[in-house]
């Protein structure tokens, strides 16, 4: 019935932070419609995108996620009036910060997926999975996590002098 | 309040041609009122009225370049012609809203676009910057008894949110100035109608029809004369008046003054300094009758 699934050398870990009213319901619809998408995504349900703290995204990367998706209601559809509007600003700022410290923003996707958009959920998840798969593992945070020792280099002459004096 | 007012000055092509008396009276009036006026060196045509109908980029670039030249002269930019005023303001408005067009224009003129400079029509300078009180103080020959129909035309206040000169549809700025110099203003119906300036040369028939309605309305309201703040309006109302009288078999005999001419009279400037001789409808009999000469 289905063709043999292609084997990949690397299966990325994708974490999705979604709101319960729109995107979670959209993902449910994808299920009831028996749509197919890569099994790499793990969904965390929140009441609202307004509840999603940027720290969670950071934490997800630190815990080994290769890609993160944040998805909620379209503007104007928020069950809580304005949570998604607040989230939109918060993440607009946060992604700029991550970009500046050197995180490739191709690993971080934001989307609006409504309860009626099962198809869009599949598309968003599939696109992100394929994109991240092509990029390979998110090595940066994993390497950091492995570095146990203080690894600073002594950059300035003053520091070097102080260090030698010890 | 600033003590000494200083402006850069963009006369526009008409004032160096058919509307020489507007230019002359403006310079003389400002001198008399001790307001500084420095002509922008090397200014050129703003493109009104054909350019923006033909090529938007060209029309924006012409104005943007003039704005850039004007920015090098101290003071806000004083503009006499309603059409130049409209184009310069429109340019600032359009370019502040569209980054794409701004970049195109910057490339075309090879200079930055000046969006935050103040472009001011002479009316604004007299009515706001100088203000009715200070203007009234300079008057030594009040225009009492002179009934004036203030003609705004279509461009001075429109469109909404662009010139921001006064209320778009029911302005009073001209009346405010005239009241300060002692003239009477009449309430009339056609003060905001179009005179057809765009068609002056191409379809004079339309212009005659439109201008006749304006003159008719002013006359009906009991005006002695009309005041304008635009050389194009002046062209139609003054130069064409004889022709219109012929076509419609009427007799208006309404002198059409520039803003600066009437205010100039009130502050004591003589006919030679105001270029009254250049007017097609001779204003001297009226002024003599009212005891203003």
């Amino acid at each position, binding site marked *: 019935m*289905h063709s043999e*699934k292609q084997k990949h050398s690397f299966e990325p*870990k994708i*974490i999705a932070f979604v709101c*319960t009213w729109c995107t*979670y*319901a959209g*993902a*449910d619809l*994808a*299920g*009831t419609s*028996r*749509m*197919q*998408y890569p*099994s790499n995504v*793990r*969904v*965390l*349900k*929140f*009441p*609202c995108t*307004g*509840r*999603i*703290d*940027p720290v*969670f995204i950071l*934490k*997800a990367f630190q*815990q*080994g*996620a290769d890609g993160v998706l944040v998805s909620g209601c379209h503007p*104007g559809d*928020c*069950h*809580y*009036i*304005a*949570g998604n509007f*607040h*989230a939109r600003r*918060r993440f607009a700022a946060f992604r700029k910060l991550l970009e500046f410290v050197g995180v490739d923003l191709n690993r971080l996707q934001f989307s609006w997926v409504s309860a009626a958009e099962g198809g869009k959920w*599949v598309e968003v998840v599939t696109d992100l999975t394929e994109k991240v798969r092509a990029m390979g593992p998110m090595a940066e945070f994993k390497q950091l996590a492995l570095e146990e020792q203080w690894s600073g280099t002594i950059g300035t002459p003053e520091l070097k002098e102080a260090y030698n004096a010890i | 309040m600033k003590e000494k007012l200083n402006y850069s000055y963009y006369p526009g092509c008409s004032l160096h041609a058919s509307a020489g008396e507007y230019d002359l009276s403006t310079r003389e009036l400002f001198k008399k009122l001790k307001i500084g006026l420095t002509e922008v060196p090397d200014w050129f045509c703003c493109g009104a009225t054909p350019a923006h109908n033909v090529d938007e980029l060209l029309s924006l670039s012409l104005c943007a370049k003039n704005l850039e030249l004007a920015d090098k002269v101290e003071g806000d930019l004083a503009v006499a012609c309603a059409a130049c005023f409209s184009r310069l303001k429109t340019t600032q408005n359009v370019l502040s809203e569209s980054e794409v067009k701004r970049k195109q224009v910057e490339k075309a003129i090879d200079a930055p676009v000046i969006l935050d400079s103040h472009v001011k029509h002479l009316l604004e300078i007299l009515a706001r910057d100088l203000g009715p009180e200070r203007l009234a103080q300079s008057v030594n020959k009040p225009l009492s008894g002179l009934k004036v129909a203030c003609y705004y035309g279509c461009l001075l206040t429109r*469109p*909404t*949110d662009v010139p921001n000169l006064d*209320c*778009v*549809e*029911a*302005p009073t700025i001209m009346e405010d100035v005239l009241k300060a110099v002692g003239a009477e203003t009449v309430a009339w*119906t056609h003060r*905001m*109608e179009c005179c057809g300036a765009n068609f002056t040369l191409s379809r004079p028939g339309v212009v005659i029809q439109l201008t006749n309605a304006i003159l008719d309305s002013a006359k009906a309201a009991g005006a002695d004369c009309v005041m304008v703040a635009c050389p194009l309006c002046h062209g139609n109302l003054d130069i064409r008046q004889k022709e219109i009288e012929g076509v419609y078999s009427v007799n208006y005999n309404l002198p059409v003054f520039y803003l600066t001419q009437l205010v100039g009279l009130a502050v004591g400037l003589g006919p030679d300094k105001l270029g009254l001789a250049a007017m097609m409808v001779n204003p001297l009999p009226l002024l003599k009758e009212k005891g203003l000469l």
Partner: protein
Amino acid sequence: MSRIGVFVCHCGENISRTVDVERVAAQVGKLPGVAFATDYKYMCSDPGQNLLKKAIIEQKLSHVVVAACSPRMHERTFRKAVESAGINPFLCEMANIREHCSWVHENREEATVKAIEIVGMMVERVKKNRVLPTITVPVTKRSLVIGGGIAGIQAALDIADCGHEVVLVEREPSIGGHMAQLSETFPTLDCSQCIMTPKMVDVANHPKIKLYSYSEIELVEGYIGNFQVTIRKKARSVDEDKCTGCGLCMEKCPIKKIPSKFDCNLGMRTAIYVPFPQAVPNTPVIDRENCTKFKTGKCGLCQKVCGPGAVDYEQEDRLIVEPVGAIVVATGFDLYTINEKPKGSMIKGYGEFGHGKIPDVIDGMTFERLASASGPTGGKILRPSDGKEPKQIVFIQCIGSRAREKGISYCSKVCCMYTAKHTMLYHHKVHDGQAYVFFMDARTPGKSYDEFWRRSIEEEEAVYIRGMVSRLYQKGDKIVVMGSDIAVGVQVEIEADMVVLATAIQPQKGADTLAQKLGISYDKYNFYSEAHAKLRPVECATAGIYLAGACQGPKDIPDTVSQASAAAAKVMTLFAKDQLEREPIVARVREAGCVGCFYCKKVCPYGAVEEKEIRDRQGNLIRVVAYVNPGVCGGCGTCQATCPSKSVELDGYTDEQIVAMIEAL
């Protein structure tokens, strides 16, 4: 140590076809904290639920994870089941291995691995779940209705008929609102007064309705079920209990030339007056600004002639506090006037129409008064300037509405219909007259509406010109209307005797101030915002406050009455229980950590965050912290994501629970 029970559902074959459920149960059973793990064909069935309950008791389980379908499907079912077995329902979580796993993946190995991880995440989450008690809020079964127009009247009557007390507050001396001013109503042309006044009398006579006319809302405190409303009862100068409504005072009042607001300044009234003969209450009020007694101290005629001695010049404003459990806001609309730009308003005025200075250019409401049989002209259409009958009349639609450059971009919804009605009324009264209508589009969706509009053209001979009017001006005793007919592409000039402008519907003046007192949100035009445009159209986001009528947006009478009854039904639903129960997914403040920056308050869409003062025993203020009112909190958690020190936490979605899930990855 927690003793977690995991129950993996086959869902017939829906899950087990692609997920190896036995392997899932076996794997998850090894996780620390899991005391029991099993799989079953149908967890949601009766035997399935019994299996769950039995295991809880026998295995002494502390937490439960049901790995089955979406929680949106059966979370309630299983939480109820664990509750009946003695566990707090919020210690039960569902792992979605059907919609999010078995149905969307075909590879059995991949799906099984994913299912194990999903269940693992939920196991870690449930460990951090806390016992959440159901939140109950007592309900005061009385309601406040603000505004005594048709919306307020309908809502008040519906609620009162259900046996609950209603406090009805009206700003004007009489209830009735705009509907009392109308002549006839579309699409049936029945007389507005005839259908309105019986309802007004019902309000006056209803034992459950307490009417405060000539009163305004001063202060609103409290929250759903428990509001305290302070009402300012303005000094009427007439004792309502003593007055019999005989009207002698009005007959004798020497000041007779005050323009009547009810008659749109077409008629005159006295200084002591009722706005219109059928007023409810039928108690006059003294207009202190125009009364000689109040201006000079002389006169006092009304007091002398009043038999019952009801006239009281010393009366003062009174403040009354009413406890209520629900509030219906029905403050209605006002018409946009084309006068010069009011200060601070986004409206720019219509200078091209003379800024309202041409006397025979009137608005739609003024025309209603002209056409009304009880109006100042006795129902004759006469020009305000000289009392002549207009033979050529021009109606202009969309004045203010759909005109972004004038500051309003919305459609006022009722003008197309009432203008059609006006042309009919005009044609009925002035047989040799001609009506012209300038319009952009005719918007007539509604039962029998389009037929009505067609009738105005086909039978009542109104001439509709598609196009807008650029200018109006007075020429002799005519008004010249200059417009365009875009269908034909020509300029049109009509010399009219009278012009009627269908001016835009706007919220009442002061709508924003009232909204701030109530703590409800409003849009940029000051229309009140509903909680959800589609699914909660009569509720405000602020719990316990409901909307009815044109204060929420332009509406005609049928829509207004429907919404008023809907709001009443919502109030009655609230009053159906003595205690208000709600899901305990609400935010709580950890006061020890709170520094009072009030970012939570800034972002809260519900206005649920209050400032709480912490004082020592001497009563000295130590600090101010945030407090979340659980009755008002909507549970979105935006406050927690915003709080810098995470001193406010959303129960059910705490940082601990979420981090536990992320760490389980």
